[in-house]
């Protein structure tokens, strides 16, 4: 029941918000709904049983003849991603609470609709439902970006929509293929689907279809061209939803479908994927160095970070997977914090051009501290959340190949270069005309900033609980790979 309530609560709230038509206090309603969802998430956390394979199961037949059912359940990984979602959405809603708020109730309705869909993606135990929620998540973000975005929003949003839709269709093909191959009577139950032993020839095509679907969503180099533009034109809340939560769907998909169902091809093609991902990692980092606009810089840095996560996923060992899952969570918080910072700067100075900024630390010390901590988290300084993930991922990659890890490690240096450059140019120096009257964080903004700071540091100092929740999932994913690992020679 819990998982169903987690999906239905924001869905109902969003329906109410759509019907409200800008009655007074609608944003309070949105906030309350998301906080109630947060409470549910915390209940799930405390009721979670690490030993069980599927927590809070809910099963009801839907289309019997096709083996489709309403079934939900949470693994450790699902729980973590659901928690990420329920923690981030209230924060994202709070970031829109400011005087020049131009959002209507429909905007909040869309955010909550998206939340419902995201929770659905992370908890579905049925492939068909998974696909429905996957596409359902795309619709609200399309409207959020298309209606409230910046310059050129229609063109860029449409491109994003079609591009990711294309990926989803590939994914659907793979899902249907797996469905056909399940023993009769066919079923869309994910656990059964991924257990199907495909012949090698078929496995390659299923791998390709799944990988395209997920790679576009993440995005992996060279399928990323929708990403910088979309992040830049989307309203801050949209960028947060996209980078903070939505791209984790792709990584989740790899863990949930790709690795278990195509394990042979995954091991075989891991080097190819790694090369793509690490190319993206370095490519994004290098491009970020010379970006002139804050949001675009964040977009490329986020692209670089997910490159590292994807590469680590394909190292296929406990440390790397644990690190990736940890980084999925911490990247979610960090990137939301970064977009929040960009949003604050944009609202107060009406510009995101880095060279027009400067000296903010002088006039807004609290904001400077917040930005500093977020930046440290994002460059993976020890005792911040970013370090735990990067450390484990790199440790895992070393076990795969030392050279891969060494090359990926260069991003640690490049990351420091662009983040410190950004910080220095925007926060330090003499104040410029646009920054002279920069107001420090307001009390509403502190309600977002302080929890983020606490999360960034707490996750860096005491990562054990999260890693322990993720561990059973990681082990069950790797369990089936074990016998294959020695037997398969990678293609490169």
């Amino acid at each position: 029941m819990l998982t169903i309530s987690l999906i239905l609560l924001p869905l109902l709230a969003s329906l109410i918000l759509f019907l409200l038509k800008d009655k007074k206090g609608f944003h309070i309603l949105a906030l309350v709904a998301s906080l109630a969802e947060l409470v549910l998430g915390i209940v799930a956390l405390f009721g979670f049983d690490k030993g069980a394979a599927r927590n809070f199961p809910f099963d009801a037949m839907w289309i019997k003849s096709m083996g489709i059912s309403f079934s939900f359940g949470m693994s450790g990984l699902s729980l973590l991603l659901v928690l990420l979602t329920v923690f981030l959405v209230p924060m994202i809603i709070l970031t829109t609470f400011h005087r020049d708020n131009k959002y209507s109730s429909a905007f909040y309705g869309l955010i909550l609709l998206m939340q419902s869909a995201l929770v659905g993606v992370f908890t579905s135990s049925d492939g068909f439902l998974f696909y429905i929620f996957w596409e359902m998540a795309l619709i609200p973000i399309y409207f959020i970006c298309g209606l409230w975005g910046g310059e050129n929003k229609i063109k860029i949003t449409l491109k994003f929509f079609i591009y990711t839709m294309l990926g989803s269709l590939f994914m659907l093909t793979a899902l249907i293929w797996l469905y056909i191959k399940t023993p009769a009577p066919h079923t869309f139950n994910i656990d059964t689907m991924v257990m199907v032993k495909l012949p090698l020839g078929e496995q390659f095509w299923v791998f390709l279809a799944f990988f395209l679907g997920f790679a576009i969503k993440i995005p992996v180099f060279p399928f990323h061209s929708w990403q910088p533009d979309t992040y830049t034109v989307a309203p801050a809340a949209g960028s947060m939803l996209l980078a903070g939560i939505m791209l984790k769907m792709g990584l989740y998909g790899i863990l949930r479908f790709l690795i278990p169902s195509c394990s042979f091809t995954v091991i075989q093609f891991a080097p190819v994927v790694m090369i793509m991902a690490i190319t993206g990692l370095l490519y994004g980092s290098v491009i970020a160095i010379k970006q002139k606009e804050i949001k675009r810089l964040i977009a490329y840095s986020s692209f670089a970070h997910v490159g590292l996560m994807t590469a680590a996923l394909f190292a296929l060992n406990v440390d790397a997977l644990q690190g990736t899952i940890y980084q999925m969570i911490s990247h979610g918080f960090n990137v939301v914090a970064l977009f929040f910072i960009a949003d604050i700067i944009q609202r107060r100075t009406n510009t995101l051009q880095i060279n027009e900024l400067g000296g903010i630390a002088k006039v807004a010390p609290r904001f400077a501290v917040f930005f500093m901590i977020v930046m440290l988290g994002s460059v993976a300084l020890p005792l911040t959340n970013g370090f735990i993930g990067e450390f484990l991922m790199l440790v895992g990659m070393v076990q795969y190949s030392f050279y891969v890890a060494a090359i990926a490690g260069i991003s640690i240096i490049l990351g420091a270069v662009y983040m410190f450059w950004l910080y220095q140019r925007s926060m330090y120096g003499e104040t410029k005309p646009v920054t002279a009257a920069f107001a420090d964080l307001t009390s509403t903004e502190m309600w977002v900033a302080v929890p983020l700071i606490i999360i960034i540091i707490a996750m860096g100092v005491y990562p054990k609980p999260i890693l322990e929740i993720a561990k059973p999932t990681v082990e069950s994913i790797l369990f089936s790979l074990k016998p294959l690992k020695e037997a398969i020679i990678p293609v490169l």
Partner: protein
Amino acid sequence: MNTLAALVPILPLLSFLVIGLNFRRLPKPVTSILACGSVLVSFIFSVVLFFHIKGGNPTVNVTLFEWIPAAATSLGFSFVVDPLSSLMLLIVTGVGFLIHVYSIGYMHDDEGFNRFFSYMNLFVFSMLVLVLGSNYLMMFIGWEGVGLCSYLLIGFWFKNQAYNNAAKKAFIMNRIGDLGFLLGMFILYVQFGSLDYQTVFAKASLLESGNLILTIATMLLFVGAIGKSAQIPLFTWLPDAMAGPTPVSALIHAATMVTAGVYMVARSHALYILAPATMMVIAVIGITTALFAATIAIFQNDIKKVLAYSTVSQLGYMFVGLGMGAFTGAMFHLTTHAFFKALLFLAAGSVIHAMGGEQDIRKMGGLKKALPITWLVFLAGTIAISGIPPFSGFFSKDEILLHAYEQNKVIWVLGILGSLMTAFYMFRLFYLTFAGMFRGTDKQKQHLHESPKSMTIPLIILAVLAVAGGLLNIPAVFGGSSSLNTFLSPIFGSGVEPVGEVSYGTEILLMSIAVIGSLAMIGFAWFRFVKTATIPVTDGIKRPALSNLLYHKYYIDEIYQFLIEKPVLWLSDIMHLFDVYVIDKTVNFVGNATVWLGKQSGFLQTGNIGFYLIAMVLSIVAFLVFGLMI
């Protein structure tokens, strides 16, 4: 003892949090008491721990909590107090405390007073974690933490973008080293399944000497040390780091943080003695850096830059010691260097304070009268660093050179050469600053004054330590007992570094060569800068080629800019263009091609219903016929 060991780093952390969270409200006296008090209490605890260890008690191990449960091992948030770390504790908290006290006077009218002390406390915390950590990951926390504090403090006056650039440069160069450290750590983790010192060393000792993996791992760890301890090729950040307030230069960029690399190699000596190739690399890099930096120092005119290059050079000596297997010697030199270099920096700070911010020694001179205490302590520091007995620098440098003589005569000769240069540039600095006539403006002359008590008292204490620090480890040739050797022997083992082959006679001869040479250089410096009162030429005047090269620090910064910075920025532009014009355009092309195809096939939609119907009927008929034919 366990609680005590845990409290040593936690106290400065708490003080950092209190000051940092209330940095706008706290009055300056409260901040001073909090910041200095926490470090003082840590120092007292460190002393207790030191005597606890010295009393022959076993090492103190504290695990606060399990930090990262990795696959092969669980990495704990844990501290260890053994002879090596207890020695470092004393240096960090002791020298740190004196510098904190000094800073109260130095920073008294800076508007960022509270911010300064919160950073300083954070630094002390990070440094203590670095030296106390009981595994490489803990060391790495401190390692990056001190890098961050160094960044924050170099760029402390953040309105000046040149300072910020120096800070960023320091952080990024350190990060390059950190990558090496990380990779070295990963190799250890994969090889030994642990990062805990004890486990790693125990498992490593089973390997044979010259093991390839161990050599690579130690090399990579040493890359980290190169970054942190400013050795060739990553040394250029340290002179730039002098942009920070002078107490910062004393604490971070002379006494503690930059010696972290030395500490790390000493801590990992069990690995390094099994990797002779790495040891040789360390020695070569150390001696090269020592000479390279010394030659640059001779031609610098900024009082802090001279000291900075001298720090780089002295760190080079420490690495020579490590490379020659003189681990105790290196740690000894680290200790005495912490005393006399902190002293020199603080005294330089006192001079700068009196001169109203002027740092160019060409505009100083004759400060002896106005600043008698500073003059005296600066002299003590200068003699100590020049290696004149019985000041502390003599003993520690001598121990390193002695090992070098024993193992490799070439390095010994180069070492002596460097020590001669040290004596020359240090006395050049001393004479130009304190002797002769005052060369500054009249306004500065009016302003000249001795610093307040809170600054001079730490100076005097440090001067005493700089003079007497050698007592820690008086070699047997002078009837001493090498007490530091004995104290550290549980760590380094007694078998590593006895000086057996060199007789006392040779030892005294070697010392005499160094001392007489240094005295001669001091005499030369006196002749040149006091007797004939030569003042270095002002900027903009053409110099001889060699001196020009040295004045411009071998153009290293420019070379790096040309070789690394420019290409990366260029690459960034190229890649961005590639992204926009190739990858994005390809995707758009696919989209546009689809649209075009749609347009082209649009002619079929004539809008004539009759046509549609006929097409439909004909198609159905065609299908029927086709179906019948099969």
